[in-house]
């Protein structure tokens, strides 16, 4: 069993070993290596080993090496930080390590050519906290990611970990916890934004012999990895919050439902649960009280619809994951018919901080209607792909241009997609919209779970709508007709349009189908399936019309509508004509060549072989 005294002892003791990282001490060096999803996949483990080996060779006793959770800047990974200075090295290869150890660690000389590009300004080197990417961010859910060693519970405890649980079980009644959560108005981060405190209150109110707490770690939005980063970088914050929730509603059993595509997260959670049990922070008589709580992992198996609360419960029960009709709220009758709280990973990660710092502190961040922060996964056509946590209320423009660094390769911004398959595309004219639940909803998109995909001038909006519909058709569970059949019909129409076979009536048909599916579907998947189509038709109707009336794809992306064309730049080298598989290019030596578009099969060979770039797609 763990007492509060022991918890504090671990905290004091471990804090001493972390002083360099927290910039409270300046003798010695601490090398922090990003072990987030991106960097982990690009060799972070080996980089750590090589660092350790070289440091041993040089006999540097006061240098410590730690693998931490996601630093956020996945674009430039693998990333390495050196403390106490906070120097940020990026795109580190195993071969570079010698140099860093020799110069920086041995002689204190920074290796400029390996620095992150953004950390040099006017010839001066900025510490990582001053870099544009991090400056506007506020970290609550990600407070420990990239700082602590994710497989060491002591480091979590050092940064106030499990203090909130101690406070709750030792000093607060369940009602007080619920009041605090209601006061803080933490809204669900899984997409719908329902206030967590109110949900907890419902489950608290129904007496039952058994209640459950579920953490939704199914993270289905394709193009989002916020939850994965939290689970891998700071797993204990989620475990602690689930226990707090259990205490508040009167549950002694928790489940984390996690998608099987995240084996690394599964492994780190297993380690974290084992450590918490060993320390008595999960299990029986937590902090010597009569409060018991334990957590089990359950793996999904690749069905997007299982992210929906009731489908997820069916799946934990070992059945096909089909949503239930919403007769009862799950806080009343959920898993095995018992009162059940289901919250998203990020929602939970906020809870310990709220308990310790209070509702007023939480509400001082963000907006009145949407307090706190939101984590987004920036992806697509953006310079700084990665993970960011911003206070609610800052604008899309700030996220995409100030933090995200804008669009690479000199391209023009076209739209940003939020909310994944349930969300929509927001065009340039709305870039100054503040990010909060209501504002994004008004634009026909949703906050969603945090996927933010930036699209540029080369992306065809009709094709993006088709992409999401293709996803929905694949993932519809088939229980109700509007969703099962309606989305198929919509996809067929969109496929016709991108193939240049769309008719004007198709546009009307899309609109009426969208209405029927939205109104007639049982669960959120169907109810929001049409959003990507509705929003692109609203903001980019001209693109749909160009496909239908002119058989033209303005973005130059839809293969079937493209034409290859040889411009004035042609020097008449004949290379294209010799390589064309259907011999449809004609022209004399040293004269401009011409493509017979009727015969061209659009293989792209001519474009590839032309030495002067005279062949274009249009």
């Amino acid at each position, binding site marked *: 069993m763990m007492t509060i005294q022991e918890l504090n002892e671990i905290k004091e003791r471990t804090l001493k070993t972390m002083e360099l990282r927290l910039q409270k001490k300046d003798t010695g060096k601490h090398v922090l290596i990003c072990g987030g999803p991106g960097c982990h*996949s690009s060799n972070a483990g080996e980089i750590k080993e090589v660092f350790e080996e070289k440091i041993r060779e040089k006999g540097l006793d006061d240098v410590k090496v730690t693998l931490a959770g996601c630093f956020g800047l*996945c674009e430039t990974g693998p990333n390495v930080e050196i403390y106490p200075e906070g120097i940020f090295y990026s795109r580190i290869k195993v071969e570079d390590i010698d140099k860093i150890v020799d110069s920086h660690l041995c002689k204190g000389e920074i290796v400029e050519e390996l620095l992150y590009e953004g950390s040099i300004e006017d010839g001066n080197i900025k510490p990582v906290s001053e870099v544009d990417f991090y400056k506007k961010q506020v970290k609550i859910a990600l407070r420990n990611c990239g700082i602590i060693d994710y497989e060491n519970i002591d480091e979590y405890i050092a940064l106030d970990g499990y203090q909130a649980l101690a406070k709750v079980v030792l000093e607060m009644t369940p009602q007080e916890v619920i009041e605090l959560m209601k006061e803080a108005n933490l809204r669900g981060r899984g997409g719908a934004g329902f206030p967590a405190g109110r949900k907890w209150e419902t489950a608290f109110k129904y007496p039952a012999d058994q209640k459950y707490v579920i953490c939704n770690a199914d993270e289905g939005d*394709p193009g989002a990895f916020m939850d994965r980063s939290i689970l891998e970088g700071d797993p204990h914050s989620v475990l602690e919050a689930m226990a707090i929730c259990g205490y508040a509603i009167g549950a002694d059993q928790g489940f984390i439902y996690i998608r099987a595509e995240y084996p690394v997260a599964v492994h780190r959670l297993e380690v974290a649960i084992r450590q918490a049990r060993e320390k008595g922070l999960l299990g029986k008589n937590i902090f010597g009280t009569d409060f018991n709580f334990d957590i089990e992992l359950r793996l999904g198996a690749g069905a997007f619809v299982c992210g929906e609360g009731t489908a997820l419960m069916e799946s934990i029960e070992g059945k096909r*994951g089909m949503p239930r009709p919403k007769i009862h709220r799950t806080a009343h009758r959920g898993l095995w018919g018992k009162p059940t709280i289901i919250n998203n990973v990020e929602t939970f990660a906020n809870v310990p901080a709220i308990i310790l710092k209070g509702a007023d502190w939480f509400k001082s961040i963000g907006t009145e209607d949407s307090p706190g922060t939101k984590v987004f996964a920036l992806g*697509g056509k953006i310079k700084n792909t990665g993970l960011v946590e911003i206070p609610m209320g800052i604008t899309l423009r700030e996220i995409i241009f100030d933090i995200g660094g804008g669009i690479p390769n000199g391209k023009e911004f076209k739209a940003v997609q939020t909310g994944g398959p349930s969300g929509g595309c927001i065009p340039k004219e709305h870039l100054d919209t503040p990010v909060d639940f209501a504002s994004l909803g008004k634009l026909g998109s949703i906050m969603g779970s945090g996927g933010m995909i930036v699209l540029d001038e080369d992306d065809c909006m009709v094709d993006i709508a088709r992409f999401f519909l293709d996803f929905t058709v694949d993932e519809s569970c088939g229980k109700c007709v509007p969703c099962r059949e309606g989305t198929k019909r919509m996809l067929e129409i969109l496929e016709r349009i991108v193939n240049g076979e769309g008719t004007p009536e198709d546009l009307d048909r899309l609109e009426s189908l969208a209405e029927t599916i939205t109104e007639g579907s049982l669960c959120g998947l169907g109810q929001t399936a049409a959003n990507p189509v509705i929003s692109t038709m609203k903001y980019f109707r001209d693109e749909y019309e160009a496909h239908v009336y002119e058989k033209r794809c303005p973005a130059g992306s839809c293969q079937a509508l493209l034409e290859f064309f040889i411009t004035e730049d042609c020097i008449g080298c004949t290379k294209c004509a010799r390589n064309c598989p259907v011999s449809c290019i004609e022209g004399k030596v040293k004269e401009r060549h011409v493509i017979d578009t009727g015969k061209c099969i659009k293989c792209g060979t001519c474009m590839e072989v032309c030495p002067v770039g005279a062949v274009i797609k249009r």
Partner: protein
Amino acid sequence: MEFVFDWEANEENIRELKIFIKENKGKKGALMAVLHKAQDLFGYLPIEVQRMISEELRIPLSEIYGVATFYSQFSLIPKGKYKIGICLGTACYVKGAQEILEKLKEVLGIDVGQTTPDKKFSIDATRCLGACGLAPVMMINDDVYGRLTVDDIEEIINKYK
């Protein structure tokens, strides 16, 4: 293509699965965990194994088949020795994952969801692997390949041939 299930070669795996079932029988909702274990052991869910699970867990075969076919991670045909999962999530899609997939299909001569006749490679289209920072991304067993271009594909596949 027909794939025959070899009881003898799988004797050890069958025993391991039976032990796993025994250990988890009492747990509520054990079926998913058992199917995951079976998929891990055999690389797919042979109908023979489903039948065995049905008997051991006393769940009708029809229900097991229903669950096995509902979830895309469970497969009814054997996967290749090297399982290629190509991400078709949004971030990867807008960064050209479709072209990577086309190239992969061309190089291996199979379609998505199929296994090469020598059972060496299989291709699956997966949803976001959570490494969008590296888009476009594919996995071969546990190895992640990111920031792919069409020109990388042949070389990568050759490493496994």
